[in-house]
């Protein structure tokens, strides 16, 4: 069963993806909700809003930190910013699960949001998937121990460090399951 952080954001669309790949899900709003989960998704949304709600709940932050030692965590968009070690907005919480530097809204306002195909590469997998970039962040710098999982126009748009994955865009909004499968099902081959 995979937890989906449901403080704010597009947790619905991640739940749809989990259903599609036959994984059970659980909404996570408090530290108690983290019991018995085998992984966690931190969805997109507004990173300042999610930070604000996390700061009111220290036990939830502690619980997520503890979970990260053993279970995979996947973050998209705002989720990536929260998972990164550093971001250009000091107001935003950084869990530091991924040793990367991110910048918020790096493509500009909503009129600059767009649909694209990104190339996912992992072992024998090389696959183009459809995604939306919605007021998306950019990964400016990746440090030691971080693997590139996907690129778009030579820019890094998805990374993995250990068991954790961060994505700057939204495959879940276009029903793409590949990155979720890699994170939670250990998918290494094209099925």
């Amino acid at each position, binding site marked *: 069963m995979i937890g989906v952080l449901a403080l704010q954001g597009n*947790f619905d669309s991640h739940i749809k993806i989990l259903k599609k790949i036959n994984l059970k899900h659980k909404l996570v709003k408090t530290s108690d909700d983290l019991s018995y989960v085998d992984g966690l998704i931190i969805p997109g949304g507004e990173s300042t809003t999610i930070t604000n709600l996390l700061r009111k709940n220290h036990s939830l932050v502690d619980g997520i930190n503890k979970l990260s030692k053993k279970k995979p965590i996947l973050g998209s968009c705002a989720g990536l910013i929260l998972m990164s070690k550093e971001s250009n907005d000091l107001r935003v919480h950084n869990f530091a699960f991924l040793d990367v530097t991110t910048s918020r809204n790096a493509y500009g306002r909503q009129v600059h949001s767009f649909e694209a195909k990104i190339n996912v590469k992992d072992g024998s997998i090389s696959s183009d998937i459809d995604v939306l970039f919605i007021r998306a962040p950019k990964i400016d710098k990746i440090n030691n121990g971080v693997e590139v999982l996907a690129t778009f126009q030579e820019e890094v748009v998805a990374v993995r460090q250990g068991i954790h994955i961060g994505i700057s865009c939204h495959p879940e909004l276009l029903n793409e399951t590949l990155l979720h499968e890699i994170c939670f099902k250990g998918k290494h081959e094209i099925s």
Partner: protein
Amino acid sequence: MSKESFKVKVGLAEMLKGGVIMDVTNLEQAKIAEDAGAVSVMALERIPSDIRKDGGVARMSNPHMIKEIQDNVSIPVMAKCRIGHFAEAQILEALEVDFIDESEVLTTADEHAHVDKHPFKVPFVCGARNLGEALRRINEGAALIRTKGEAGSGNIVEAVRHMKMITSQIIELQDADLLEKAEEFRVPLALVKEVAKNQKLTVPNFAAGGIATPADASLMMQLGAETVFVGSGIFKSQDPSERAHAVVKAVTHFKSAKDVLTASYDLKDAMKGILMTDIPEDEKFSNRGD
């Protein structure tokens, strides 16, 4: 506009789910809203309760005021255009606001047609009192629907009525003649079929119009809203920052009465509010646009 670009518009609405969108009239309020955890701010010169009080023609806000807020907050900034006033919408798009609210709170510009929203790159949100209105707006290109409620009233009764109306009309589609419904609603059959099949609108469905307290926010979320707009409720109260924090918390934890209680505990007085019987029928914002 292609189906793909419509998905990009709805994509932003998806990101705003489980949040609170707050009306703000200046930079100071916008910062209070952002610090309190608002997912977005609606920049407007006068909040609905003042528009109601002042009378006169209410138009799109001064672009300078909107720009100042855009330049100083990181969350999406929305702004309102008059119903049918596509030139105001074009200006707001040129300004790169993140969402345009084609709003009944402003004075109607076209009594016969709403803005054709398809050609725009900026997504639109529109108000609705019932399923027919919601589907007409979606068919015109709206990427997000909100209840009209009765803006500036501090009274939740109309938002409840509109949300329950939309929900029950969607359920009724299960046993209805869909062709008849499509004619009644004046929208394509395919749209009615999709809503009947999925038992939900094809775009997110938010609540607005009269939300003043954490309890109001929880009520609307429990009735099926996916996010709430709070207009006059926050900055017409005695403690805007505390109330803003409290409503944000109440929306996230809307199912936990204990959390909504904690959020409500230390708040001062909410805005006074107006009874619907005290608003003449021709002064109700929600009657504008169909």
